[in-house]
Protein backbone atom coordinates (compact mmCIF):
# COMPACT_ATOMS: atom_id res chain seq x y z
CA UNK A 1 0.00 0.00 0.00
CA UNK A 2 1.25 3.46 -0.81
CA UNK A 3 2.21 5.04 2.53
CA UNK A 4 2.12 8.56 1.13
CA UNK A 5 -1.63 8.77 0.47
CA UNK A 6 -3.67 10.92 2.79
CA UNK A 7 -5.58 7.86 4.03
CA UNK A 8 -2.40 5.99 4.95
CA UNK A 9 -1.01 9.04 6.70
CA UNK A 10 -4.31 9.43 8.58
CA UNK A 11 -4.41 5.78 9.68
CA UNK A 12 -0.75 5.90 10.74
CA UNK A 13 -1.44 9.04 12.79
CA UNK A 14 -4.46 7.43 14.48
CA UNK A 15 -2.59 4.20 15.27
CA UNK A 16 0.41 6.00 16.74
CA UNK A 17 -1.11 5.95 20.24
CA UNK A 18 -2.92 2.58 19.93
CA UNK A 19 -1.38 -0.36 21.84
CA UNK A 20 0.52 -2.80 19.62
CA UNK A 21 -1.90 -5.74 19.92
CA UNK A 22 -4.92 -3.70 18.76
CA UNK A 23 -3.14 -1.89 15.95
CA UNK A 24 -3.68 -4.33 13.07
CA UNK A 25 -7.37 -4.81 13.90
CA UNK A 26 -8.27 -1.14 14.33
CA UNK A 27 -6.06 -0.09 11.40
CA UNK A 28 -7.58 -2.59 8.98
CA UNK A 29 -11.14 -1.68 9.95
CA UNK A 30 -10.46 2.05 9.77
CA UNK A 31 -8.76 1.73 6.39
CA UNK A 32 -11.71 -0.30 5.03
CA UNK A 33 -14.30 2.12 6.39
CA UNK A 34 -12.51 5.12 4.90
CA UNK A 35 -12.24 3.34 1.53
CA UNK A 36 -15.98 2.49 1.67
CA UNK A 37 -16.87 6.10 2.37
CA UNK A 38 -14.61 7.37 -0.42
CA UNK A 39 -16.11 4.89 -2.88
CA UNK A 40 -19.61 6.02 -1.97
CA UNK A 41 -18.70 9.64 -2.61
CA UNK A 42 -16.98 8.80 -5.92
CA UNK A 43 -20.08 6.94 -7.03
CA UNK A 44 -21.99 10.11 -6.19
CA UNK A 45 -19.85 11.92 -8.77
CA UNK A 46 -17.01 13.43 -6.72
CA UNK A 47 -13.32 13.48 -7.68
CA UNK A 48 -11.41 10.75 -5.78
CA UNK A 49 -8.91 13.20 -4.24
CA UNK A 50 -11.62 15.60 -3.14
CA UNK A 51 -13.68 12.71 -1.76
CA UNK A 52 -10.73 11.39 0.25
CA UNK A 53 -10.07 14.83 1.65
CA UNK A 54 -13.75 15.29 2.59
CA UNK A 55 -14.00 11.89 4.32
CA UNK A 56 -10.87 12.48 6.39
CA UNK A 57 -12.03 15.98 7.29
CA UNK A 58 -15.29 14.52 8.60
CA UNK A 59 -13.43 11.92 10.68
CA UNK A 60 -11.53 14.74 12.38
CA UNK A 61 -8.37 14.77 14.47
CA UNK A 62 -6.87 11.23 14.38
CA UNK A 63 -5.64 11.51 17.97
CA UNK A 64 -9.19 12.23 19.12
CA UNK A 65 -10.54 9.32 17.08
CA UNK A 66 -7.93 6.99 18.61
CA UNK A 67 -8.84 8.21 22.11
CA UNK A 68 -12.51 7.45 21.37
CA UNK A 69 -11.60 3.99 20.11
CA UNK A 70 -9.68 3.23 23.29
CA UNK A 71 -12.04 5.02 25.70
CA UNK A 72 -9.15 7.19 26.72
CA UNK A 73 -10.02 10.40 28.59
CA UNK A 74 -9.33 13.63 26.70
CA UNK A 75 -8.92 15.67 29.85
CA UNK A 76 -6.31 16.13 32.56
CA UNK A 77 -8.65 15.64 35.54
CA UNK A 78 -12.22 14.69 34.62
CA UNK A 79 -15.53 15.18 36.46
CA UNK A 80 -15.04 12.01 38.53
CA UNK A 81 -12.02 13.47 40.32
CA UNK A 82 -12.34 17.20 39.74
CA UNK A 83 -13.93 18.02 43.12
CA UNK A 84 -11.47 15.87 45.09
CA UNK A 85 -8.61 17.50 43.17
CA UNK A 86 -9.93 20.99 43.84
CA UNK A 87 -10.53 20.41 47.56
CA UNK A 88 -7.13 18.85 48.17
CA UNK A 89 -5.40 21.59 46.21
CA UNK A 90 -7.15 24.32 48.20
CA UNK A 91 -6.22 22.77 51.55
CA UNK A 92 -2.60 22.28 50.54
CA UNK A 93 -2.30 25.77 49.08
CA UNK A 94 -3.45 27.19 52.41
CA UNK A 95 -1.04 25.14 54.50
CA UNK A 96 2.15 24.40 52.59
CA UNK A 97 3.19 27.87 51.31
CA UNK A 98 2.51 29.39 54.77
CA UNK A 99 4.68 26.77 56.48
CA UNK A 100 7.39 27.23 53.86
CA UNK A 101 7.30 31.02 54.26
CA UNK A 102 7.60 30.68 58.03
CA UNK A 103 10.50 28.24 57.78
CA UNK A 104 12.42 30.28 55.22
CA UNK A 105 11.90 33.51 57.18
CA UNK A 106 13.28 31.84 60.29
CA UNK A 107 16.29 30.55 58.37
CA UNK A 108 16.98 33.91 56.70
CA UNK A 109 16.81 35.85 59.97
CA UNK A 110 19.05 33.37 61.77
CA UNK A 111 21.70 33.44 59.05
CA UNK A 112 21.69 37.24 59.27
CA UNK A 113 20.35 37.98 55.79
CA UNK A 114 19.47 41.58 54.94
CA UNK A 115 15.73 42.34 54.70
CA UNK A 116 16.05 42.51 50.88
CA UNK A 117 17.70 39.09 50.64
CA UNK A 118 15.23 37.66 53.12
CA UNK A 119 12.13 38.89 51.27
CA UNK A 120 13.59 37.74 47.93
CA UNK A 121 14.27 34.26 49.30
CA UNK A 122 10.81 33.96 50.86
CA UNK A 123 9.03 35.11 47.68
CA UNK A 124 10.98 32.77 45.41
CA UNK A 125 10.55 29.77 47.73
CA UNK A 126 6.81 30.41 48.16
CA UNK A 127 6.33 30.70 44.38
CA UNK A 128 8.28 27.48 43.83
CA UNK A 129 6.27 25.71 46.54
CA UNK A 130 2.96 26.80 44.95
CA UNK A 131 4.06 25.53 41.54
CA UNK A 132 5.24 22.23 43.05
CA UNK A 133 2.03 21.67 45.02
CA UNK A 134 -0.12 22.32 41.93
CA UNK A 135 2.03 20.12 39.70
CA UNK A 136 2.36 17.07 41.96
CA UNK A 137 -1.28 17.06 43.10
CA UNK A 138 -2.42 17.28 39.47
CA UNK A 139 0.01 14.54 38.44
CA UNK A 140 -1.34 12.17 41.11
CA UNK A 141 -4.91 12.78 39.92
CA UNK A 142 -3.83 12.44 36.28
CA UNK A 143 -2.49 8.96 37.12
CA UNK A 144 -5.58 8.05 39.19
CA UNK A 145 -7.80 9.08 36.28
CA UNK A 146 -5.93 6.75 33.93
CA UNK A 147 -5.53 3.72 36.17
CA UNK A 148 -9.26 3.21 36.69
CA UNK A 149 -9.71 3.82 40.40
CA UNK A 150 -13.21 4.85 41.36
CA UNK A 151 -13.17 7.97 43.50
CA UNK A 152 -10.79 8.85 46.30
CA UNK A 153 -13.71 8.75 48.74
CA UNK A 154 -16.01 5.81 47.95
CA UNK A 155 -18.71 6.58 50.53
CA UNK A 156 -21.73 8.45 49.12
CA UNK A 157 -22.41 12.04 50.05
CA UNK A 158 -24.95 12.66 52.83
CA UNK A 159 -26.35 15.90 54.26
CA UNK A 160 -24.22 15.27 57.39
CA UNK A 161 -21.25 16.43 55.33
CA UNK A 162 -22.65 19.94 54.84
CA UNK A 163 -20.21 22.50 56.21
CA UNK A 164 -21.06 23.95 59.64
CA UNK A 165 -22.27 27.56 59.55
CA UNK A 166 -19.20 29.78 59.84
CA UNK A 167 -18.55 31.40 63.21
CA UNK A 168 -19.55 35.06 63.19
CA UNK A 169 -17.03 35.83 65.96
CA UNK A 170 -19.64 38.07 67.59
CA UNK A 171 -21.35 35.64 69.97
CA UNK A 172 -21.39 36.07 73.75
CA UNK A 173 -18.86 33.25 74.11
CA UNK A 174 -16.45 35.16 71.82
CA UNK A 175 -16.78 38.25 74.04
CA UNK A 176 -16.16 36.25 77.22
CA UNK A 177 -13.14 34.50 75.68
CA UNK A 178 -11.64 37.78 74.49
CA UNK A 179 -12.07 39.44 77.90
CA UNK A 180 -10.69 36.45 79.80
CA UNK A 181 -7.62 36.27 77.55
CA UNK A 182 -6.96 40.00 77.98
CA UNK A 183 -7.39 39.74 81.76
CA UNK A 184 -5.06 36.74 81.98
CA UNK A 185 -2.39 38.47 79.86
CA UNK A 186 -2.65 41.68 81.92
CA UNK A 187 -2.45 39.68 85.15
CA UNK A 188 0.57 37.75 83.87
CA UNK A 189 2.40 40.96 82.95
CA UNK A 190 1.76 42.51 86.40
CA UNK A 191 2.78 39.27 88.10
CA UNK A 192 5.89 39.15 85.90
CA UNK A 193 6.92 42.68 86.85
CA UNK A 194 6.22 42.26 90.59
CA UNK A 195 7.27 38.69 91.29
CA UNK A 196 8.81 37.32 88.06
CA UNK A 197 7.59 34.45 85.85
CA UNK A 198 10.96 32.86 85.09
CA UNK A 199 12.90 30.83 87.64
CA UNK A 200 16.61 30.63 86.91
CA UNK A 201 19.44 29.77 89.28
CA UNK A 202 17.04 29.40 92.19
CA UNK A 203 15.45 32.84 91.98
CA UNK A 204 12.36 34.26 90.23
CA UNK A 205 12.94 37.04 87.71
CA UNK A 206 10.75 38.94 85.21
CA UNK A 207 10.70 37.60 81.63
CA UNK A 208 10.10 41.11 80.26
CA UNK A 209 12.73 43.81 80.57
CA UNK A 210 12.08 45.65 83.90
CA UNK A 211 12.94 48.96 82.19
CA UNK A 212 9.59 48.68 80.32
CA UNK A 213 7.89 49.56 83.58
CA UNK A 214 5.98 51.81 83.95
CA UNK A 215 5.44 53.68 80.65
CA UNK A 216 5.71 50.94 78.02
CA UNK A 217 3.61 48.58 80.11
CA UNK A 218 1.08 51.36 80.76
CA UNK A 219 0.87 51.97 77.00
CA UNK A 220 0.28 48.27 76.42
CA UNK A 221 -2.49 48.25 79.03
CA UNK A 222 -4.18 51.21 77.31
CA UNK A 223 -4.15 49.30 74.00
CA UNK A 224 -5.43 46.15 75.71
CA UNK A 225 -8.24 48.16 77.24
CA UNK A 226 -9.05 49.40 73.73
CA UNK A 227 -9.13 45.74 72.57
CA UNK A 228 -11.57 44.94 75.38
CA UNK A 229 -13.80 47.87 74.39
CA UNK A 230 -13.63 46.69 70.75
CA UNK A 231 -14.75 43.19 71.80
CA UNK A 232 -17.72 44.70 73.65
CA UNK A 233 -18.63 46.89 70.66
CA UNK A 234 -18.51 43.89 68.29
CA UNK A 235 -20.73 41.91 70.65
CA UNK A 236 -23.16 44.82 71.02
CA UNK A 237 -23.52 45.04 67.23
CA UNK A 238 -23.66 41.24 66.96
CA UNK A 239 -21.29 41.26 63.97
CA UNK A 240 -17.91 42.35 62.68
CA UNK A 241 -17.90 45.27 60.25
CA UNK A 242 -15.25 46.81 58.06
CA UNK A 243 -14.88 49.59 60.66
CA UNK A 244 -14.25 47.27 63.60
CA UNK A 245 -11.88 45.18 61.47
CA UNK A 246 -9.84 48.32 60.67
CA UNK A 247 -9.73 49.32 64.35
CA UNK A 248 -8.55 45.80 65.14
CA UNK A 249 -5.82 46.09 62.49
CA UNK A 250 -4.65 49.45 63.87
CA UNK A 251 -4.52 48.06 67.42
CA UNK A 252 -2.51 45.06 66.19
CA UNK A 253 -0.03 47.36 64.45
CA UNK A 254 0.23 49.58 67.52
CA UNK A 255 1.07 46.55 69.67
CA UNK A 256 3.18 44.47 67.29
CA UNK A 257 5.40 47.15 65.75
CA UNK A 258 6.70 48.61 69.06
CA UNK A 259 7.07 45.07 70.46
CA UNK A 260 9.18 44.03 67.45
CA UNK A 261 11.20 47.25 67.63
CA UNK A 262 11.88 46.71 71.35
CA UNK A 263 12.85 43.09 70.67
CA UNK A 264 15.22 44.21 67.89
CA UNK A 265 16.66 46.88 70.20
CA UNK A 266 17.17 44.22 72.95
CA UNK A 267 14.77 45.99 75.29
CA UNK A 268 11.79 43.58 75.29
CA UNK A 269 13.20 40.46 76.96
CA UNK A 270 14.92 40.78 80.32
CA UNK A 271 18.69 40.82 79.47
CA UNK A 272 19.39 39.06 82.76
CA UNK A 273 17.23 36.12 81.58
CA UNK A 274 18.89 36.04 78.16
CA UNK A 275 22.40 36.09 79.52
CA UNK A 276 21.71 33.35 82.06
CA UNK A 277 20.03 31.19 79.41
CA UNK A 278 22.96 31.81 77.04
CA UNK A 279 25.32 30.54 79.74
CA UNK A 280 23.24 27.37 79.93
CA UNK A 281 22.57 26.65 76.25
CA UNK A 282 24.86 28.86 74.20
CA UNK A 283 24.70 32.26 72.55
CA UNK A 284 23.14 31.02 69.27
CA UNK A 285 20.06 29.64 71.04
CA UNK A 286 19.24 32.29 73.64
CA UNK A 287 21.57 35.25 72.91
CA UNK A 288 20.34 38.69 71.79
CA UNK A 289 20.02 37.44 68.16
CA UNK A 290 19.51 33.79 69.07
CA UNK A 291 16.97 31.33 67.72
CA UNK A 292 14.52 31.86 70.58
CA UNK A 293 14.50 35.64 70.10
CA UNK A 294 13.91 35.22 66.35
CA UNK A 295 11.07 32.78 66.99
CA UNK A 296 9.48 35.21 69.48
CA UNK A 297 9.69 37.97 66.85
CA UNK A 298 8.13 35.80 64.15
CA UNK A 299 5.42 34.67 66.55
CA UNK A 300 4.50 38.28 67.38
CA UNK A 301 4.34 39.12 63.65
CA UNK A 302 2.34 36.00 62.71
CA UNK A 303 -0.20 36.45 65.52
CA UNK A 304 -0.72 40.12 64.62
CA UNK A 305 -1.11 39.39 60.90
CA UNK A 306 -3.41 36.44 61.49
CA UNK A 307 -5.59 38.33 63.99
CA UNK A 308 -5.91 41.19 61.51
CA UNK A 309 -6.82 38.91 58.60
CA UNK A 310 -9.30 37.09 60.86
CA UNK A 311 -11.09 40.37 61.61
CA UNK A 312 -11.44 41.20 57.92
CA UNK A 313 -12.61 37.67 57.06
CA UNK A 314 -15.31 37.83 59.73
CA UNK A 315 -16.35 41.30 58.53
CA UNK A 316 -16.66 40.01 54.95
CA UNK A 317 -18.57 36.93 56.03
CA UNK A 318 -21.17 38.91 58.00
CA UNK A 319 -21.99 41.28 55.14
Amino acid at each position, binding site marked *: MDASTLTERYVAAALRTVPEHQRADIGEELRG*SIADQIDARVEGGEERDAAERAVLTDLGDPDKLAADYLDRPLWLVGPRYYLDWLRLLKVLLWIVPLCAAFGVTLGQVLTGATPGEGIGAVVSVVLAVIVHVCFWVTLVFFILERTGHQTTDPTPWTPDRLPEPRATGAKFVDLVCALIILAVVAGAIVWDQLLGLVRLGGEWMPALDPRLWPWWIAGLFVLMAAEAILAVVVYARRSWTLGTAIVKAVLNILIAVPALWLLWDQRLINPEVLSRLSDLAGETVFGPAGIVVVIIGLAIAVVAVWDTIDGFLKARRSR
Partner: protein
Amino acid sequence: MTEDDLLETHLQELRRGTVVLACLRLLAQPGYGYGLLEDLERHGFSTDANTLYPLLRRLEKQGYLTSEWNTDEARPRKFYRTSAAGLRLAAALTHESRAIAAAIDALPEED
Protein backbone atom coordinates in the same frame (compact mmCIF):
# COMPACT_ATOMS: atom_id res chain seq x y z
CA MET B 1 -23.05 30.21 21.23
CA THR B 2 -25.88 31.02 18.85
CA GLU B 3 -29.37 29.62 19.28
CA ASP B 4 -28.79 27.19 16.40
CA ASP B 5 -25.67 25.79 18.08
CA LEU B 6 -27.56 25.36 21.33
CA LEU B 7 -30.40 23.58 19.54
CA GLU B 8 -27.89 21.28 17.85
CA THR B 9 -26.23 20.46 21.19
CA HIS B 10 -29.55 19.58 22.82
CA LEU B 11 -30.67 17.47 19.86
CA GLN B 12 -27.37 15.58 19.92
CA GLU B 13 -27.77 14.86 23.61
CA LEU B 14 -31.29 13.58 23.07
CA ARG B 15 -30.20 11.33 20.19
CA ARG B 16 -27.07 9.93 21.81
CA GLY B 17 -28.66 6.93 23.51
CA THR B 18 -30.92 6.12 20.60
CA VAL B 19 -27.96 5.36 18.31
CA VAL B 20 -26.94 2.50 20.64
CA LEU B 21 -30.49 1.16 20.48
CA ALA B 22 -30.61 1.43 16.69
CA CYS B 23 -27.22 -0.31 16.28
CA LEU B 24 -28.22 -3.20 18.52
CA ARG B 25 -31.48 -3.68 16.62
CA LEU B 26 -29.96 -3.34 13.13
CA LEU B 27 -27.03 -5.63 13.92
CA ALA B 28 -29.36 -8.53 14.66
CA GLN B 29 -28.39 -9.06 11.00
CA PRO B 30 -24.55 -8.93 10.78
CA GLY B 31 -23.20 -5.68 9.38
CA TYR B 32 -19.92 -3.77 8.94
CA GLY B 33 -18.96 -0.17 9.73
CA TYR B 34 -19.86 1.76 6.61
CA GLY B 35 -22.88 -0.41 5.74
CA LEU B 36 -24.28 0.21 9.20
CA LEU B 37 -23.64 3.94 8.84
CA GLU B 38 -25.84 3.97 5.72
CA ASP B 39 -28.50 1.79 7.35
CA LEU B 40 -28.67 4.14 10.30
CA GLU B 41 -29.02 7.10 7.94
CA ARG B 42 -31.80 5.36 6.03
CA HIS B 43 -33.70 4.58 9.25
CA GLY B 44 -33.45 8.15 10.43
CA PHE B 45 -30.62 7.78 12.95
CA SER B 46 -28.04 9.91 11.19
CA THR B 47 -24.67 9.48 12.93
CA ASP B 48 -21.11 10.64 12.31
CA ALA B 49 -18.57 8.01 11.28
CA ASN B 50 -16.19 9.12 14.02
CA THR B 51 -18.91 8.48 16.62
CA LEU B 52 -20.10 5.16 15.23
CA TYR B 53 -16.78 3.30 14.83
CA PRO B 54 -15.60 3.82 18.40
CA LEU B 55 -19.14 3.04 19.64
CA LEU B 56 -19.09 -0.35 17.93
CA ARG B 57 -15.76 -1.16 19.64
CA ARG B 58 -17.14 -0.14 23.01
CA LEU B 59 -20.29 -2.25 22.63
CA GLU B 60 -18.13 -5.18 21.56
CA LYS B 61 -15.90 -4.75 24.60
CA GLN B 62 -18.98 -4.67 26.84
CA GLY B 63 -20.16 -7.94 25.30
CA TYR B 64 -23.26 -6.60 23.52
CA LEU B 65 -21.76 -7.20 20.05
CA THR B 66 -19.60 -9.98 18.64
CA SER B 67 -17.34 -9.49 15.65
CA GLU B 68 -15.77 -11.52 12.91
CA TRP B 69 -13.48 -10.66 10.00
CA ASN B 70 -14.83 -11.50 6.55
CA THR B 71 -12.00 -11.83 4.04
CA ASP B 72 -14.01 -13.40 1.21
CA GLU B 73 -14.31 -10.16 -0.71
CA ALA B 74 -11.61 -7.90 -2.14
CA ARG B 75 -11.83 -5.56 0.84
CA PRO B 76 -11.62 -7.35 4.23
CA ARG B 77 -14.38 -6.20 6.55
CA LYS B 78 -15.12 -6.60 10.21
CA PHE B 79 -18.70 -7.76 10.68
CA TYR B 80 -20.51 -7.08 13.92
CA ARG B 81 -23.51 -8.96 15.25
CA THR B 82 -25.67 -8.35 18.31
CA SER B 83 -25.06 -10.94 21.05
CA ALA B 84 -27.72 -12.46 23.30
CA ALA B 85 -26.90 -9.87 25.96
CA GLY B 86 -27.12 -7.18 23.26
CA LEU B 87 -30.60 -8.34 22.29
CA ARG B 88 -31.72 -8.15 25.92
CA LEU B 89 -30.24 -4.65 26.18
CA ALA B 90 -32.00 -3.64 22.95
CA ALA B 91 -35.33 -4.88 24.34
CA ALA B 92 -34.81 -2.94 27.58
CA LEU B 93 -33.82 0.23 25.71
CA THR B 94 -36.77 -0.08 23.33
CA HIS B 95 -39.16 -0.51 26.24
CA GLU B 96 -37.64 2.50 28.02
CA SER B 97 -37.77 4.77 24.98
CA ARG B 98 -41.44 3.90 24.42
CA ALA B 99 -42.12 4.73 28.05
CA ILE B 100 -40.32 8.06 27.57
CA ALA B 101 -42.30 8.80 24.40
CA ALA B 102 -45.55 8.04 26.27
CA ALA B 103 -44.45 10.23 29.18
CA ILE B 104 -43.69 13.08 26.77
CA ASP B 105 -47.15 12.69 25.20
CA ALA B 106 -48.67 12.89 28.66
CA LEU B 107 -46.98 16.23 29.40
CA PRO B 108 -49.20 19.33 29.40
CA GLU B 109 -49.82 20.48 25.81
CA GLU B 110 -48.21 23.68 24.60
CA ASP B 111 -50.57 26.42 23.43
